[in-house]
């Protein structure tokens, strides 16, 4: 869970930086989108670098999902009889890791259909990601799905990053406060960075 989670987190950091290029206008954003296909050239063939990243990401997503399933099965088996006196346990971010993860998995499917394969995109012009992004965030459902998923992402990172540090043995009593602050900061920066794009389209800053 920790290693695959950190792999995806590293990707998201690069992803959010790329997204923010949308504020520099259609030309720069579309050129950046094109560069993603030619990056690594001429050492690598067209789109090879992109596919290497995609395969690595797919492996991370699958590993993360399989590990989450195995862990959940094991945890449910370990408490066959639940308590009659119910009470909420742990923080909101911690309690929503499983459902939040499922929301994020469904979002990834939607996100690929929307902006990679363009199957469900209103604009659907290959090679013109800027116009496609604006089209997505000009629909109410595009915004609702995206904003819900990004809030889930923030909560998931808040507990996930700190937990990954504990799993890998990187935490300690003295470092705990710094790690929690880093997890919260990372969650906030990534969520704010991703949310900035639909908000900019909705307010007309990006059009």
């Amino acid at each position: 869970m920790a290693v695959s989670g950190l792999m995806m987190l590293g990707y998201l950091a690069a992803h959010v930086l790329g997204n923010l290029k949308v504020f520099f206008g259609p030309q720069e954003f579309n050129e950046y989108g094109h560069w993603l296909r030619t990056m690594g050239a001429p050492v690598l063939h067209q789109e090879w670098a992109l596919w290497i990243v995609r395969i690595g990401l797919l492996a991370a997503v699958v590993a993360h999902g399989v590990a989450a399933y195995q862990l959940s099965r094991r945890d449910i088996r370990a408490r066959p009889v639940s308590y009659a006196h119910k009470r909420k346990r742990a923080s909101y971010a911690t309690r929503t890791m499983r459902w939040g993860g499922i929301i994020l998995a469904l979002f990834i499917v939607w996100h690929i259909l929307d902006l990679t394969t363009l199957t469900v995109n209103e604009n659907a012009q290959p090679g013109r990601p800027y116009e496609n992004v604006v089209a997505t965030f000009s629909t109410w459902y595009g915004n609702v799905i995206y904003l819900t998923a990004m809030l889930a992402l923030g909560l998931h990172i808040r507990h996930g990053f700190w937990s990954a540090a504990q799993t890998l043995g990187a935490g300690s009593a003295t470092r705990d406060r710094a790690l929690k602050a880093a997890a919260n900061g990372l969650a906030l920066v990534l969520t704010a960075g991703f949310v900035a794009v639909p908000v900019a389209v909705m307010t007309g800053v990006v059009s």
Partner: protein
Amino acid sequence: MKLKLRVWRQRDAGASGTMATYEVDGISPDMSFLEMLDTLNEDLILRGEDPVAFDHDCREGICGACSLVINGDAHGPERTTTCQLHMRSFADGDTIDVEPWRAAAFPVVKDLVVDRSSFDRIIQAGGYVSVPTGAAPEAHATPVPKPDADFAFEHAECIGCGACVAACPNGSAMLFTSAKINHLNVLPQGAPERETRVLDMVATMDEEGFGGCTLTGECATACPKGIPLPSITAMNKEWLRANRKVKR
């Protein structure tokens, strides 16, 4: 004080149980929670009913025998053991739910008594130091740095009550196992078995059917001895280190 109790009653390991309702009267706020249960049991015996079975021993908060999940909290609302919990923590007329530790690895024996021998088997897998017998060595023969001694002592405080497992939403025994491992692994006396200890104890913990850790922190919150959550992190670090060192 007059209280309404909802207590888990289960005839034996094979029987199915239920929450039974009782009323107890004449409870002093200075009584411990166990003394309140003693009062209930005296009433039950006088009425010719089967008394409620529960685990207890020293009643001083140091042996780890008492258990009970009280209103959803392991050892009740105060951060102490059930035997050191006093009725002044409750209000007159309260309804109190009393349940046993709930975990697949802690099967119910009767009523509120659970079998915690899975903890014993984790200890048997490596929670000891192998030392030659004979006269005690000179106290200063093996110097221990003060921070290491403090770290070891903090973890040695674990009384093995199982509140961590009861409080964990996943029924995980990570905090107990990590306390036992950290206590010995940081000391020179524990060094010869440092790698096998963590590998064997974690393997036994997994075999016993405890859940996995999702770092909810409920264990450390419930622990009457204040074993800290980073204890689990220290165990993970030891486990990763041992796997690098030992090729199995």
